[in-house]
Structure formats: structure tokens, C-alpha cells
């Protein structure tokens, strides 16, 4: 059957079982939007292309499926860039489709022309400029395969307008065969045996689990390993939800704003079992002093992550779930009883805490109350900065895909559109964006998207009237010279802003009103902004200063 390129695109998306497309129209994508007009495909119109990319990312992280966004050429495409880079850094499967000027105009500085494949080359797993409509279906098939397989990532397809208007025989390929792309899935049995022996011989093992646990669906195997061998588990920011933080052997997050007990445990450890993590500088601190006495096992699907930052003793390249399954079959538990006593002692000595004696609402208290109201059965997204770290520290994540946050790129403005994406995927789930008054203003226009699509997203603004994390660094390292971080003349009235968009706005200034406001927001079937007026100069502690060893933390100690 002969179809136009635009129809081939939409039919292919349907064949890929795409649940929702997030995007924004424009000149050269008119043929695609004409097909979308009556296609059986959910399309969510955002108010900015950046939000479309983040929403597709949130949808992907919440479901594990490929997120799809669509934008026009030139500025539409460049507006996607931050969202694509965010997805790339955090290994999120995404297909971004951009319109492009006519093939014969490419390179002529035509209206709304941008070399988007050139621009996105270093921030995509792969990208395509389609030059022949006959190749379109095959490219889409490949793009989805590349995006979701191996270490997932964003793939961009640039579609010139004449390609979407041209006709070709449509036959969606059933299989992909790429001689140049064959990710390793199964771990090497010999290496797995070595790992099992190292675990058996260890006295102070620690599992350091990253986002790879969640991507590969390895949470049950991780739980089995940790429980069978009695090994404490710390996770990265992106690994949160991969192991229940309510469990006594959970150490919560490690690194710059991790728990002191996780950082001490890693430093004292004699065996680090890194799974689906990449030894990021926010995790390791000063590299030479990271787990100085430990052997390192590293399980990762991306060979280039292995021995990139730290020397690894036992590398195992493969899918985390596959490797852990095989490891669990042969593992013999080491004797960690003394180590677990030490861990219990560390947890008692250095609990996460904050001073909650004053009248002013503490941001940490708000996060705790959101946990109390949801008991972990909610999807939490965050913006970036203090709000993100408090959301990581004071909520207990027990389920995978319930914590969505821009870890690698640290993108302010991520949380709200990501919450929209998650809510589109799960209309009946409670979704909270834990935000700051700075970050929320980066994509605040999406209130329109949320309200119009009847998405009951809750935005909890921890409003300290400043760019808190940068202000914290200025307080600690720049002699309190608060250069352009404090909104002296104040923030917009978020309650009125919510109302202007048709959402619900609730301002909370008293501690006793926090829990009832959260309860009311959850019960409200509309988008809600909770504007919590919190302590201005509250800091995130503990904190490892940049470049310092992770066991040398400041603040928040007993």
C-alpha cells in the first residue's frame, strides 16, 4: 500500500504502540499534523517544545516505554535540545521527531532552518536525516530499537517536509538487523563466577546501585541479592526506587548530598558492587579517596562506563537483571553480621536530620509530609537544586519508576513537564512535582497543558524566594555574597498565577496547614500549586564540598 511520508510516520508510531506524543506544530510539520488530526494516536500539545521533550522523558521514565516528542524545524527543533540532552545524560529511551526544510533547501539558510542533526549529534544516541521516503519506515523501526535497547537514549529523526509529502510503499519492518550495533546483553559467566567469589570472600561489601537497575527492571533480583547475601544497598539519585528505602539494609543515597552513613559505609567497605551506575563525580567525590580499601565489581551494559573514572577489578558487561539473575543462582552469602552491626551503628550515629524547632515551615518537613500522605505510592518528580536534594533525602522511595529527576544534566524546569508526562501515562496516580520557586518558573507555562488536559498534577513549591542551592554555595564558599540568587523583590503570586490558568492555588505559611493542604491537593481533580513559604536560608546537609572525599562532609552531623 502506498502512503505519504506523514502517514507512514503516524502508522509507524501506532505500530510501535506509542501511548502519547508530546509536541508543538509549525510550518514544515503541517503534513504530519494534518494526519494527526484524526489519527488514533494521543497527542498532547505543550506550550513550549522544551516541555514536550521533558514530558516525553517523564512518560518514558514512568513507564519504561519510549517517549516520543515532535517539533517543527529551526526554533522548534532547537527548543527540544535541553530535553534531549537531559534524556541522553540519564539514559532515557526517547524518539524526537523534528521537521526540516525541503531537501533541496537544506544548507541554504532557509526560513526556520537549523542543522538539528549536527546540533544534536553529541547529545543523542543516534540521529537520522531522512533523505528518501522509501527509507522512512525502516529508519523509524531502527530509531525505536536503538532508543530502547542496550543503554537506552534519545534518537532524533529529522524529516524534511518533502519527505512527509512524498509517497512510498508502506510495509513496517518486523525485524531490525544492524551489523554495527549489537549491544551485549548476557554477562560473561567467568566474570560472574569471579564476582560471586569476591562477594563470598568479602567482609564489608556495599551494593552501589544506579539507574541501570530501574532501566533493566532488576529491582527484584537486586532485592534477592541484597537479602540473600545480607549486603547493604546505597543508590544513586537515579537508582532511587530500585531498592526499598524502608528496608533496614538500605543506606539511601550516597555522594555529595547522600546520607553520611552511606558515605562512611562506602569509604570503609572492602567490596563495592556497582550495578548500572557510572561513578559520577557527584557520587565519588575525590576519586583517589573513593572506597580506598575496596575491590570493585562493576556490572553495566555500557562498556565505556567501565573503568572510565575508577579502576574496576571485576568488570561484567551486560544487562543488570540478566547478570544479577545468574549471580543469584551461584552466590554464597559472606558473613556480614559484624558489618551490619557497624552499619546499624552508623545509621544511628548519623541520621538524616534537620532542625524543626522554629515556627517557619522547613522544606524538609514538607517533603516528609508528602511521604506521609502518599506512603510511597506516588510518582515524585523534581526540579533541580535544593528541592531535588530534599526530595531525595526526606521521602522514602520503595518502588521503581516513582522518582523522576534530571540527574546527569541537572536541568531546572524538568520536573513539571516530566510530571505531566507521568500523569498522561498514569491518569489515576498521584503525581507530585517537588519544585523550587526558581525552577518552576522555567516551565510554568505548562500550567495551560496540565489544566486543559485535566491532569491532576500537584506542584509543591518549596518557596524560599531564592535560587537556594546556588545561594547555599555562595553562603559556604563565596562569603555570603548572594550574587543574583535572591529574588529581593519577590516571586510572582503563584496562587493567582495558578488561578489565572484555571488551576488551583493554595498558599501555606503555617506548619499545621502543611498536611491538610497536601491532602486537599491529592483529593483535588485539577492541577494544584501548593505554595509553601519556607525558611529562606535553609541548607541541604550533609554536603561533600566539590572535589572532597565523600567521608568528609559538612553540616547535618550528630
Amino acid at each position, binding site marked *: 500500500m502506498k502512503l505519504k511520508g506523514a502517514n507512514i510516520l503516524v502508522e509507524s508510531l501506532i505500530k510501535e504502540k506509542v501511548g502519547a506524543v508530546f509536541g508543538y506544530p509549525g510550518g514544515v510539520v503541517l503534513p504530519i499534523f494534518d494526519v494527526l488530526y484524526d489519527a488514533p494516536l494521543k497527542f498532547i500539545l505543550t506550550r513550549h517544545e522544551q516541555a514536550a521533550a521533558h514530558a516525553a522523558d517523564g512518560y518514558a521514565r514512568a513507564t519504561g516505554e519510549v517517549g516520543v516528542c515532535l517539533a517543527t524545524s529551526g526554533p522548534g527543533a532547537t527548543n527540544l535540545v535541553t530535553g534531549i540532552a537531559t534524556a541522553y545524560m540519564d539514559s532515557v529511551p526517547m524518539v524526537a521527531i523534528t521537521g526540516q526544510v525541503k531537501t533541496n533547501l537544506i544548507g541554504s539558510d532557509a526560513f526556520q532552518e537549523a542543522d538539528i*542533526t549536527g546540533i544534536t*549529534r553529541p547529545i543523542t544516541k*543516534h540521529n537520522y*536525516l531522512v533523505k528518501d521516503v522509501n527509507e522512512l519506515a525502516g529508519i523509524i523501526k531502527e530509531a525505536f530499537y*536503538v532508543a530502547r535497547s542496550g543503554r537506552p537514549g534519545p534518537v532524533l529523526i529529522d524529516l524534511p517536509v518533502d519527505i512527509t509529502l512524498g509517497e512510498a510503499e508502506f510495509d513496517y519492518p518486523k525485524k531490525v538487523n544492524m551489523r*554495527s550495533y549489537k549491544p551485549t546483553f548476557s554477562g560473561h559467566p567467568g566474570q560472574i563466577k569471579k564476582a560471586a567469589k569476591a562477594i563470598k570472600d568479602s567482609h564489608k561489601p556495599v551494593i552501589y546501585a544506579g539507574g541501570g537497575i530501574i532501566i533493566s527492571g532488576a529491582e527484584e533480583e537486586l532485592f534477592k541479592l541484597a537479602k540473600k547475601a545480607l549486603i547493604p544497598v546505597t543508590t544513586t539519585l537515579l537508582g532511587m526506587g530500585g531498592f526499598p528505602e524502608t528496608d533496614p539494609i538500605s543506606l539511601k543515597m550516597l555522594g555529595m548530598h547522600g546520607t553520611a552513613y552511606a558515605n562512611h559505609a562506602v569509604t570503609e567497605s572492602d567490596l563495592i558492587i556497582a550495578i548500572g551506575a557510572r561513578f559520577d563525580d557527584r557520587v565519588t567525590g575525590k576519586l583517589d579517596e573513593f572506597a580506598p580499601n575496596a575491590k570493585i565489581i562493576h556490572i553495566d551494559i*555500557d*562498556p565505556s562506563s567501565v573503568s572510565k573514572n575508577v579502576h574496576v577489578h571485576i568488570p561484567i558487561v551486560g544487562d543488570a537483571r540478566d547478570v544479577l539473575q545468574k549471580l543469584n543462582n551461584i552466590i554464597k552469602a559472606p558473613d556480614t553480621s559484624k558489618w551490619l552491626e557497624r552499619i546499624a551503628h552508623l545509621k544511628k550515629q548519623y541520621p538524616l536530620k534537620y532542625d524543626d524547632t522554629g515556627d517557619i515551615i522547613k522544606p524538609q518537613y514538607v517533603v516528609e509530609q508528602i511521604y506521609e500522605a502518599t506512603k510511597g505510592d506516588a510518582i515524585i518528580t523534581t526540579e533541580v537544586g535544593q528541592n531535588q536534594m530534599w526530595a531525595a533525602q526526606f521521602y522514602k522511595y520503595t518502588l521503581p519508576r516513582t522518582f523522576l529527576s534530571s540527574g546527569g544534566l541537572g536541568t531546572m524546569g524538568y520536573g513539571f513537564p516530566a510530571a505531566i508526562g507521568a500523569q498522561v501515562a498514569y491518569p489515576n496516580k498521584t503525581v507530585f512535582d517537588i519544585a523550587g520557586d526558581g525552577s518552576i518558573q522555567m516551565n510554568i507555562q505548562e500550567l495551560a497543558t496540565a489544566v486543559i488536559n485535566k491532569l491532576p498534577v500537584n506542584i509543591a513549591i518549596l518557596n524560599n524566594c531564592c535560587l537556594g542551592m546556588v545561594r547555599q554555595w555562595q553562603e559556604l564558599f563565596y562569603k555570603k555574597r548572594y550574587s543574583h540568587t535572591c529574588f529581593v523583590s519577590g516571586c510572582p503570586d503563584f496562587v493567582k498565577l495558578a488561578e489565572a490558568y484555571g488551576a488551583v492555588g493554595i498558599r501555606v505559611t503555617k506548619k499545621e496547614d502543611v498536611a491538610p493542604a497536601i491532602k486537599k491537593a491529592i483529593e483535588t481533580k485539577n492541577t494544584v500549586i501548593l505554595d509553601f513559604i519556607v525558611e529562606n536560608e535553609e541548607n541541604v546537609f550533609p554536603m561533600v564540598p566539590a572535589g572532597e572525599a565523600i567521608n568528609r562532609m559538612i553540616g547535618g552531623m550528630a
Partner: protein
Amino acid sequence: MKHTISVLVENKFGVLARVAGLFSARGFNISSLAVGETEDPSVSRMTIVVKGDDKILEQVKKQLNKLIDVIYVKDYIRKEHIDKELILLKIEVDKKNKTKALNIIKKSPASIVKTTADTITIEMTGTQDDIEKLLAALEGKNFRIKEMVRTGRIAMEL
């Protein structure tokens, strides 16, 4: 330390930009890069000389392998191989030193492409060492090089 690596890539639009972009984005140093078709027209070969220690070489190889259009990456460490490059050289001469120049060239594997009253154009294929030797010999006698063109190294396992 310099390493020669050979990268087989899909002969597709943009692949050179992907490889070159990877080097600049990750801060790796390229000494030379030679690209050409192989016996299979759908495959190109890039021979890249990289500066760096073993750890960097390892990362370069892994990162190259991560590119979707890269089919195969190998290095020539501990492998019997031949590597060559081609140099074209135009040197300035005058009546007095022309014979001296011709003598140096005669003793080297280089050949003469063209001579004029005040220049000699030379072509030479050889290992990097051979070429450096010729250059040193010419510079040792204070010959001025008007123009130099080098291809970058290509290599083949034997």
C-alpha cells in the same frame, strides 16, 4: 604515546562528523586521520593516530564502538602490521645548494616529482620515522620548506 587505530564505519552521510565530534567532545587528541573506501563500498575505513596513554586508548576504542555507525575498532598494538604515510614536499633551492639537495633525496626513499630553477618537489611514501629522517636531513642543511602536505598514517595488519 601515539597509537594507531583502525575504525570500520558505515559509509553513510555524517559519519566523519560523528567520529570527529566524539574526539573533540571527549577531549581526545587526533594526530592524524585518513579516510577512504574499503573493498566493500558500503564500508569506509578511518585510520586514526591518537595521542594518549593506554587508559585513553581504551576509552577512545570504547567510545568509538558506542557510535551506532561504527562497525569495528582495532588497534595495532602487538600485531604484525605495516604502516605508511605519504608526504609531498616543495623545497626552495638555488644554484649553489641544488646538488646538495639532490644528494639528500637520492640517499632517501623519496622521489622527485618536479624541479624548477628554484624549487624541488618531492614525493615520499614511508613510515613516520622515514619521513621524519628526510625532514631532519633537509632541515639540517638549512633548506627552506615552501610547502608540506602529509596524508596521515594508514595501516594494515599482516
